């Protein structure tokens, strides 16, 4: 029986690309307003999992529920009203302005055939203000910097009024300041009641902000728990095959990688199918 008040429920999801298992019996649940981190090495299934949640991929086994409805049975337009994605990058070859791009986020909610209504515009204006995009609104997407681009992406996702926000590698091209800024903003969104799921390679960043962290390897969940439970040298060693120490700095956990494991030192991680 699913627990009460769960916004997102993932039940034994399996997905394979041409006989290769990329997701292998994944199950977890997420509450409204929860900030979830998804970590794991390349090819561990993080992105595939995000794609299954927003209906882009259909799991061969298991089911995903958004607000109690099974995603694979929902219309795309219904999913889009509940679940938004923040992509890693934006297309910049069509002369689209920042403002036009943010407006596209309203697509699922606009009922007219052609024009947005005042409510849509208010949402967009609010997001532009929140993410400090006013000076950039007339700029073309190819003219904005990486840090600004991330704010544009978030603004577009927010005007979609999602209950679940899926973020894939938000900090890939960002320097330290912008990485922290993006995570602060995502954290803020989760406190406003949006369930935020972030997939990232940056363990320390996720540990710092997330309520719960899920570690994936080979398409399965190795461990799911609070940052303290998940952040152990043993788990990092198992999952990433890296020798690491975990230290506490000003009350915050920080993983410091030391060296990759050599052949013979590696162990098989649990959860492997």
């Amino acid at each position, binding site marked *: 029986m699913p627990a009460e008040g769960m916004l997102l429920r993932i039940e034994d999801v399996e997905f394979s690309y041409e006989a290769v298992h990329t997701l292998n019996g994944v199950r977890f649940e997420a509450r409204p307003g929860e900030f979830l981190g998804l970590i794991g090495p390349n090819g561990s299934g993080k992105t595939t999992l995000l794609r299954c949640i927003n209906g*882009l991929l259909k799991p061969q086994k298991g089911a995903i529920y958004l607000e109690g409805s099974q995603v694979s049975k929902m219309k795309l337009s219904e999913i889009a009203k509940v679940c938004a994605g923040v992509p890693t990058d934006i297309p910049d070859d*069509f002369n689209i302005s920042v403002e036009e791009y943010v407006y*596209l986020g309203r*697509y699922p909610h606009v009922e007219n055939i052609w024009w947005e209504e005042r409510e849509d515009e208010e949402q967009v204006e609010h997001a532009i203000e929140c993410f400090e995009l006013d000076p950039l609104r007339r700029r073309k997407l*190819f003219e904005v910097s990486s840090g600004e681009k991330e704010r544009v992406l978030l603004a577009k996702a927010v005007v979609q009024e999602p209950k679940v926000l899926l973020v894939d590698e938000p900090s890939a091209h960002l320097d330290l300041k912008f990485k922290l800024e993006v995570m602060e903003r995502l954290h803020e969104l989760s406190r406003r009641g949006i369930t935020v799921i972030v997939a990232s390679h940056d363990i320390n960043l996720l540990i710092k902000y997330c309520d719960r962290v899920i570690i994936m390897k080979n398409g399965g969940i190795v461990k799911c728990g609070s940052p303290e439970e998940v952040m152990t040298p043993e788990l990092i060693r198992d999952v990433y095959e890296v020798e690491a120490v975990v230290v506490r700095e000003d009350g915050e956990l920080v993983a410091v990688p030391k060296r990759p494991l050599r052949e013979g030192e590696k162990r098989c991680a649990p959860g492997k199918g």
Partner: protein
Amino acid sequence: MGQSEKMEGQTTKRTKKRLYLIMLLGSVSLFVLFILYLSTGQVKLGFVESMQALVGYLGKLFSGGELTTSEFIVGEIRLPRAIAVIGVGIALSVAGAIMQAMIRNPLVDPYITGTSSGAAVAATVVMVIGFGITSSLLDFAVPIAAFVGAMAAFFFTMSLAEASGGRALNYVLAGIVTGTALSSVTTLLLTSFPTEVQDPLFWMFGSFNQIDWTKALLIILPSLVMCLIALLYARELNVILLGHEQSYQLGIDSRRLRRWMMVLAAMLTAVAVAFVGIIGFLGLIVPHICRIMVGSDHRLLLPASMIIGANVLLVADIICKTATGGELPVGAVIALVGAPFFGYLLVRKGREYAG
């Protein structure tokens, strides 16, 4: 009125204003060019004279009566031709705009995707080989063949592109493969049957020379209907620019929509090419010019492409008609005028425009 103003925000109002402005300016210039078009040709008519002839012709359409010479020239020869030019201008420009959005590549147009070449091959085969078709039937057999050829070439390009990965680049490459192969077939046919060369060669560079009322209506009516369908999907076209994954997350199955929209674009191309031959470059430059003028929002871009496309092609055909020493193929004129203009825009707008 009050209700809709209440519901509408500032940005929508601004966008609407820009749309109305561009449509107003475009229509005024279209009207001027239209009258100018009616007055140009072998028989020179003044601006006022041709307008009088037009009014006279339209009046006699309903009341009956003998047409004067100038009424006949304007009403029976130049008017259908002007309508055909406008129809083709609209059709090719919108087809180009749709293809560019759908393939997410500003470098494609009906010509690059091989669609026009497919029409040319099929039409040439019919014209050169004839299949024993009598000349009166040939007038209809050629457009029908062109239509079938356009659709076949288009589907071949699409299948090739999707089989090779379905990315933006694959569509361009597949189009070049299809277009080049089909153009060679056309060239081989033309060189193998030299006595028949004049007609197909002229046809391959586009000409409005043989337009009558039937053909004009067969061009303009389907073009307008299909453009109207495209206009209904303007917002979806905007979302599609973001790519498959992001469109999906906003609630659009872009692969499915793309298939339908591409069929629409191919049909628009086929309607145009079937009656007047290949007019390359128009479908490429008009959406680009409009994107520079009004941006990428298809709610502005599609109507702007329609009106600008009609304007540009009218100008080109006026040049063709007024050339000394016989009529010029309109496709060649478009390319000659369009290429430098497009180059100028690219350089001037350089940084501002990443198309």
